């Protein structure tokens, strides 16, 4: 069974995305955005990590390197946030994020993208 991690400090947003991804046949887990996410990723190899903030990518902790083990293309990393600035989006994509989506988010579109990603794995 494929595994998805949703990371956010906002419990409401986390739960909303978790419910939207229900029924995809994947195990969906949730965690906070900080060390909890890194610790969980160190213990479990996820297929997809959805981070609902951009700050963890810019805090200088090389987050992608911590989430994605050396030499592996998994987990795919999606970022979802309210930021729309082009420079922010480009920075995220350059540092290794696979998809960037903004709030307000289309749940159907997110679900389709996640399903597509899981099929390709």
């Amino acid at each position, binding site marked *: 069974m494929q595994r998805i991690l949703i990371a956010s400090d906002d*419990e*409401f947003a986390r739960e909303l995305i978790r419910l939207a991804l229900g029924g995809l046949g994947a195990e969906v887990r949730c965690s906070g955005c900080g060390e909890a996410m890194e610790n969980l990723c160190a213990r479990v190899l996820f297929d997809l990590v959805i981070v609902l903030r951009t700050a963890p990518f810019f805090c200088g902790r090389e987050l992608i390197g911590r989430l994605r083990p050396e030499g592996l293309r998994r987990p795919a990393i999606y970022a979802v946030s309210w930021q729309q600035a082009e420079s922010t989006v480009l920075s995220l994509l350059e540092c290794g994020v696979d998809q960037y989506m903004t709030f*307000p988010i289309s749940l159907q579109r997110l679900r389709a993208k996640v399903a597509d990603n899981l099929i390709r794995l």
Partner: protein
Amino acid sequence: MNSFYMICAAIAAAAAGVLLAMLLVETLRRRRELWRNDILRRRYLHIVMFALYADDGAVPRFPMLRRAGVRLLLAETLAGVAAMTCGLDMTVLRRIVKAYGLDSWLLRRARRAQGYRRARYLALLASLPVDGAVAARVVRYGTSRNRSVRFQALLVRLAAEPMAVLRLLAEYAWPLTEAETAQIMALLRRGVLPVAYEPLVTSPSGNLRRVGLHIVRQFGIEEAEPLLLRMLADARTPELDAEALRTLCALRRPLIRREVRECVARMSASERRALIRCMVRENYSPRFLRRIFDDGECGYYETMVTTYKRCLA
């Protein structure tokens, strides 16, 4: 005398004990309420999402709705779902709002509250799918002394009457701030408002032009360049001219234009520096600057580009 002191000490100790016990009870009660609210919020979200996906025409049942403060939780949950998502079928949310009378309940609460508390209820109302009747009932808050209340009332009307958006924004007598325009843009991104930048940018109303400029900037509409240059040439409102220049920068269009030169010449020193910071952020080449700015400002630009300050611009 000793016994008098002992009685006083005993009474003081008893009073302190009672106060401590009351504090403890209050803390426990508040903690329990928070715990209950967390559970209920999660449960309501589950019910709402299930109703959205099932869409069988039935109104879902929400437990414990008659308890104090719980209706607000339901309103917050619906507003949260509506604010964070787009492309949802609003019929289900509208059905829930109608069935539980959330719109009239929030209106009642807003009428009884004052200041920012009233603005908060109106903000919730603006996120819910409401109809024209609700919009008519918040017109009275449009002249409130509290800026936040006035603006949230406008948002409610915009959300309820998307076809009247141009008229409502033009009628709003106070100039919109950046934060307020951002909230209007959030409505637009949810698909509540129409995205037609041209009537906005060419409008005589300052508020409409400001929203139009935000749309052009956010969606990177390069075709709007002639309109922006015409706006600069008209020079009707200085603060909007500066915003039009920033929009041209955000679109990364060439700035060596007569309209731009004239507009920059009209700007104050601080506005020119703000524009320089904007140009630095958008990676404009310093080569052509000398045609627009003087030597001191060109030096400021080069310093910004060559030092760490570029990241802060």
